[in-house]
């Protein structure tokens, strides 16, 4: 789960990581008051769950109150499309107004989980302000890493090693080490999947986190109750939001038209692959999970049919704990009041699959059965 920059910065403040002075504004009028309060040139930053805002007008320097009014008016209420957003971009509901910081040195700092070593990793680069992917491609030697130990705090000797490679004024070591330890602490205590400060700058011999990105691991949200409250549903595709409510693993894909409903993540991926092999493109990834009940299947099917991009629906269910007949009922429920819906191809195997086919045949739903995925691929081709 992502949170906004201003929320991340609030957490930073709580842990004692220096951030620029600033406040959130919900409208241009508030933006002006914040600027007056700060009594300085400010930066206006659109609050959306995406990086790359600067390049598309989501971060602007305001010299005076006219600027701040204009920029926040332009941002608030609009959608921001960056190189990281999918679909039509993300709505800006708030802007963060911050005092301008003089920048002497820019660093990139991140903590994330390194799956290879099974440890948190601190990543730092002197190429602050650039996207880490770009640095990794062009100057991989400029990316430095130290690894934590899941059972120990982050040890100072590792931070020292990192610092020595950075060519930063030795007098700043204490500040540096303190920031690394605090970011690491947030990462661990808040069950983060990523904390990114890009850039972390040095300004007048002080480190300041100019930007802040925090993602929380979904699987750990149950114990991060405070973070749960920071959830902003406006930053998520409405269908994905709906799926989230029903604990469905759904990912909207913006360039396809075959809606897929599958049980199991691996099988769902294989199903997507098959649609491509058939010369079409999947409109989504959707795993209903191992033990979905009728209601969950109904909801899943509704989400697919509500997606206007979807022209064909491919259902691929392998009954295990999930009973195919129950699933069939869910599909029937979902289509009960619908007069028009896309063509449906269904593969039903495993527990009670014959029963499912009988139920679906008895219903008035137009559904083409397929024996297996190969057969399904063939039938998709025939339809398109």
């Amino acid at each position, binding site marked *: 789960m992502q949170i906004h920059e201003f929320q991340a910065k609030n957490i930073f403040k709580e842990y004692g990581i220096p951030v620029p002075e600033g406040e959130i504004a919900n409208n241009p009028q508030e933006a002006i008051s914040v600027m007056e309060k700060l009594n300085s040139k400010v930066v206006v930053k659109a609050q959306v769950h995406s990086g790359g805002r600067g390049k598309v007008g989501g971060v602007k320097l305001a010299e005076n109150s006219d600027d701040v009014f204009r920029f926040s008016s332009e941002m608030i209420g609009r959608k921001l499309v960056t190189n990281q957003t999918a679909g039509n971009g993300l709505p800006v509901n708030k802007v963060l107004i911050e005092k301008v910081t003089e920048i002497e040195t820019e660093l990139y700092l991140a903590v994330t*989980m390194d*799956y*290879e070593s*099974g*440890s*948190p990793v601190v990543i730092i680069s002197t190429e602050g302000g650039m996207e880490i992917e770009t640095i*990794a491609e062009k100057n991989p030697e400029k990316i430095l890493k130290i690894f934590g*130990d*899941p*059972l120990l705090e982050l040890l100072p000797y590792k931070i020292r090693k990192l610092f020595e490679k950075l060519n930063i004024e030795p007098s700043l070591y204490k500040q540096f080490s303190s920031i690394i330890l605090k970011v690491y602490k947030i990462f*661990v205590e808040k*069950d983060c*999947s990523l904390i990114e400060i890009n850039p972390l700058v040095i300004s007048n011999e002080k480190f300041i986190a100019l930007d802040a990105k925090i993602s929380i*691991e979904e*699987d*750990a949200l*149950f*114990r991060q109750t405070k973070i749960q409250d920071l959830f902003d549903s406006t930053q998520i595709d409405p269908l994905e939001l709906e799926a989230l409510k029903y604990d469905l*693993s759904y*990912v909207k*894909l913006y360039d396809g038209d075959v809606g897929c409903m*599958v*049980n*199991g*993540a*691996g*099988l*769902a*991926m*294989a199903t*997507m*692959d*098959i*649609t*491509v*092999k058939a010369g079409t*493109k*999947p409109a989504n*990834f959707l*795993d209903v999970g*191992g*033990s979905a009940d009728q209601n969950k299947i109904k909801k899943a099917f509704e989400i697919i049919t509500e997606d206007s991009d979807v022209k064909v629906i491919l259902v691929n269910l*392998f009954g*295990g*704990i999930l009973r195919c007949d129950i699933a069939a009922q869910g599909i029937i429920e979902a289509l009960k009041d619908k007069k028009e819906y896309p063509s449906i191809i269904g593969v039903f*195997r*495993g*527990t009670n699959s014959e029963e499912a086919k009988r139920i679906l045949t008895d219903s008035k739903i137009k559904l083409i059965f397929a024996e*297996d*995925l*190969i057969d399904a*691929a063939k039938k998709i081709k025939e339809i398109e």
Partner: protein
Amino acid sequence: MTILIHSETKMVVQGLGRDGSFQASKCKSYGTPIVSAVHPGRGGLYFEDSVPIFDSVEESVDTTGANLGLIFVPAPFALDAIIEQVDSGIENIVCITEGIPVQDMTKVMSYIEGKKVRLIGPNCPGFICPKENFKAGIIPSEIVSSGPVGVVSRSGTLTYEAIVQLTNLGIGQSACIGIGGDPIHGTSFVDTLRMFEEDNDTKIIVMIGEIGGLREQHAAEYIKSNVSKPVVACIVGQTAPSGRRMGHAGAIVTGKSALAQEKIKVLKSSGAIIAESPTEIGYVIKEILK
């Protein structure tokens, strides 16, 4: 005996919730020697009138000599359950639980490092050995048959897909094992390949991988220098977009090496036979066995 079990293997099931009870029952009726179950608060009772339930794993081990553990406890309590099993001396642990926080798993993995214990999973379907009628997990026994193919996969239902194909083509399995869809996990492809290579019952190996991580790359390296048996490999997620998690926490493209194409390339160069799609696995194997 095939991989992971021996004639003295005795299973304890931990977590008799809805799914745990249902699946334990399936394992038992398949023939798996379940000697005990653990569910706090139900100590003294019996599961299906015959399997003693204990409040703690330690009691269960002390009383029944259980040496293989199957865990169904919910994600928030999984770290506790796994370590309870480790601390109680269980040597093989299968954790079915899905959605365990990553940090919990990193702790578990660090904790068991250097200890004489094997963890399979989490977020996996476990394993099944058809010849021995031994099942520790949730792979439907109806679809398996005994034979020469060892199946290993990161996925659950996709594994079933492969198994069904094989069985329908009259090709049986020595053992089928799902190593799980989480990025931090116990037994790896490499561990499983080693076991299959050493197992006399296994003549040919099916490996089903997916996008994300470097597991398939490690497997390729291992296959190249250590596996003499034919390996048929398949990678799903070729059409998954970058940066989005495809269900499995581990199935996310975060760099070039996480891509399906990249994995297929290294597996091919390691000598593995590539099945372009999981739907082709059965036919590829049939071809090899000819």
